[in-house]
């Protein structure tokens, strides 16, 4: 007897919809037969039987949503080993294809990635109706609202139109705005980043999606030399109101070339604004602010957060100001400064620290350039201790910058040398255990917080 398990379509998939059964109880199947269809918000695929046998039971009814990966979905009779089906994989993206979705043994898909806690902020949203939406849909809504508002705004990138987005962030935009404003590009990052920048110089407001920021390294010349510097070099004549956006940082098990955090690279450059939101409300509000901003903006998203739901204000023109950090948890014991997905780890670390009597204050930078150092300094003046947390490498990193500026501005308030938590100084390894060791973790944050607290 063999259990057929819910397969993972991608390295980051945690659950999906069992869309259709192609077999019924009693049917004989052999290896390779399509037995079911699985859907997520990113992709669909067919599930094949990997063993011969007879369908003994369908454990999950057709149409069931949110079926967790590795849940038994059917039972086959026959003497075979327990093996999950081989997904007939359609890559949702190059990034995902480069992972190995064809898992031969069941593996925890989440890997080293911790679940992010949705954090509501009743104070900020007082009097506003909140709805739970994913970061993915928040980004989509931000683009749709700004495109309705301004005919000069358009979206271009690989698979943004007909495919509906490699990560489905641009879902339904082609249907609403047509192919003039939602433009599929060839796989040609240098060329289309330059083309987008040229269009911005001529007065349009492009949103350039990179399938991931790893591929934007081929385009970084235009982001920096053309978009960021030209206003200055032209004595204020040539503007580039453009947003470069896409997932940044480590996904899960996609290896060194697809797992880099570019925050410090872009944060280094005058002329750019650099945003890295954590929750859906910030993703939406900051992306709308970025699209409206007359300057080039690098907007760093996180694939691991796309599917996470958070509270987002409904029915209002929700714009979050660029350049403002947010205190996500108040505390007096230690300041944890972070951005993007690491904010979620900091919040969880703060809960653990609270159990040990240390009340951590969690500062979400949200904007990396211009950095709201005043909020960080105000927090350090209260806690007297600082830990920075970033997904990128430590040397010349965001944490290094935060520490330097706190030392310059609040040296006398520090009761301990600041500490940095960051990815280990190696290309991100593939092996699950090594990847886990390489990335920041709740345990590493807790440890650092205790060291600076002398506990």
């Amino acid at each position, binding site marked *: 007897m063999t259990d057929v398990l819910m397969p993972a379509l991608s390295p980051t998939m945690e659950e999906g919809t069992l869309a259709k059964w192609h077999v019924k109880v009693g049917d004989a199947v052999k290896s390779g037969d399509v037995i079911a269809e699985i859907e997520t918000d990113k992709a669909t695929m067919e599930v094949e039987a990997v063993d011969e046998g007879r369908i003994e039971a369908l454990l999950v009814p057709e149409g069931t949503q949110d079926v967790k990966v590795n849940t038994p979905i059917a039972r086959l009779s026959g003497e075979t080993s327990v093996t999950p089906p081989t997904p007939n994989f359609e890559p949702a993206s190059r990034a995902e294809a480069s992972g190995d979705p064809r898992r031969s043994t069941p593996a925890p898909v989440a890997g080293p990635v911790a679940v992010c806690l949705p954090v509501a902020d009743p104070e900020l949203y007082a009097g506003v109706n909140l709805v739970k939406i994913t970061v993915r849909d928040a980004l989509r809504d931000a683009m749709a609202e700004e495109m309705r508002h301004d005919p000069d705004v358009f979206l271009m990138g690989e698979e943004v139109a007909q495919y509906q987005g490699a990560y489905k962030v641009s879902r339904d935009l082609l249907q609403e705005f047509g192919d003039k404003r939602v433009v599929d590009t*060839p796989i040609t990052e240098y060329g289309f980043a330059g*083309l987008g920048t040229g269009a911005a110089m001529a007065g349009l407001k492009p949103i350039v999606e990179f399938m991931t920021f790893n591929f934007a390294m081929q385009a970084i010349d*235009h982001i920096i*030399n053309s978009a960021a510097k030209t*206003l200055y*070099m*032209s*004595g204020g004549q*040539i503007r580039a109101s453009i947003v470069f956006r896409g997932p940044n940082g480590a996904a899960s098990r996609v290896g060194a070339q697809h797992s880099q955090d570019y925050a410090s690279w872009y944060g280094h450059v005058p002329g750019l604004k650099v945003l890295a939101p954590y929750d859906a409300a910030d993703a939406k509000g900051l992306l709308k602010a970025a699209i409206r901003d007359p300057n080039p903006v690098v907007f760093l998203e996180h694939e691991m957060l796309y599917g996470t739901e958070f509270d987002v204000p409904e029915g209002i023109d929700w714009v979050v100001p660029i350049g403002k950090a947010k205190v996500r948890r108040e505390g007096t014991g230690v300041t944890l400064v972070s951005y993007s997905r690491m904010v979620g780890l900091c919040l969880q670390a703060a809960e653990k620290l609270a159990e040990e009597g240390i009340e951590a204050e969690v500062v979400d930078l949200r904007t990396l350039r211009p950095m709201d150092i005043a909020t960080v300094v105000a927090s350090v003046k209260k806690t007297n201790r600082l830990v920075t947390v970033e997904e990128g490498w430590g040397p010349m990193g965001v944490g290094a910058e935060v520490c330097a500026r706190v030392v310059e501005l609040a040296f006398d308030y520090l009761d301990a040398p600041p500490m940095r938590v960051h990815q280990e100084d190696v290309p991100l390894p593939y092996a699950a255990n090594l990847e886990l060791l390489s990335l920041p973790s709740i345990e590493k944050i807790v440890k650092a917080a205790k060291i600076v607290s002398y506990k």
Partner: protein
Amino acid sequence: MAREQTGEAGRRKANAAAAKPDMVAAGGSDELLKYYRDMLLIRRFEERAGQLYGMGLIGGFCHLYIGQEAIAVGVQAAQKPGDQVITGYREHGHMLACGMDPKEVMAELTGRASGSSRGKGGSMHMFSTEAGFYGGHGIVGAQVSLGTGIAFANRYRNDKKVCFTYFGDGAANQGQVYESFNMAELWDLPVVYVIENNQYAMGTSIDRSSAETHLYKRGASFRIPGEEVDGMDVLAVKAAAEKAAEHARSGKGPYILEMKTYRYRGHSMSDPAKYRTRDEVDEVRKTRDPIDHIEELLEKKGFADEAALKAIDAQVKRIVADAAEFARTSPEPDPSELYTDVYTEVAV
């Protein structure tokens, strides 16, 4: 200069027969005199820039356009109001052809507050939104993607503008050029690619750098039409540019013009140009000089005698002398300018 163009357009309209390329190429008196004057202005301007560089008044890199004047002037003559121009860092000539004030161009070379970029761009980074001149780009080949993007904006707005995107034989080997070709043809973008093939990418001759030295063929695998043009003949340049612009403007997509030309000076002021012989340079100057060519034509047709040409030369020299004096005496930018123009202020 903009007014002169309007006058010229009006004259052409009055004489409909002149719209035929062969008749245009024949050139009328006003037209030839204008090209002569514009090319001469570029040459004298660049000679003076070279002098100012030698005197230490111009810093950094400085790439002179001497020898290639017929291209910027001839292409400009084919443009319509609103069309855009973008090129690399050998751009002084294009700016003058676009109608930018020689004073603000020279003052930018000397890094002064009255320069076109308020002294913050320098020789390689100049712009004028007013003149439709989008730079002035220092990274070889970058202007090709950017110019294709300007053309994308033209098509997005359906405003019938054409972006003239210049690059050299060196940039023609950059990958992004082909990424841009692909998208330009895929989306029928109104862009004319003007390749100024001056035979040398810095010190590397085209034979040593390019597997296919006929650069007009480089669009073939993207289905972009291309042709070779005598870039030393302003009338040939103009006729070819008109044909290419019409192709782009009518919605048929990009067009490639390979202008065969030659630069008389080194790649930049610091290049002694040891990679070619003195005889090679002299031969071109003697037999193919674009300004001499028009001068002969003017005299042959009886449009101008020696005295008239000397008067033009004197006028041009005065403009250049005034520009140099302006550039030498204008104040440097105020220190407060250091932190301006990094970001556009967000309207509240």
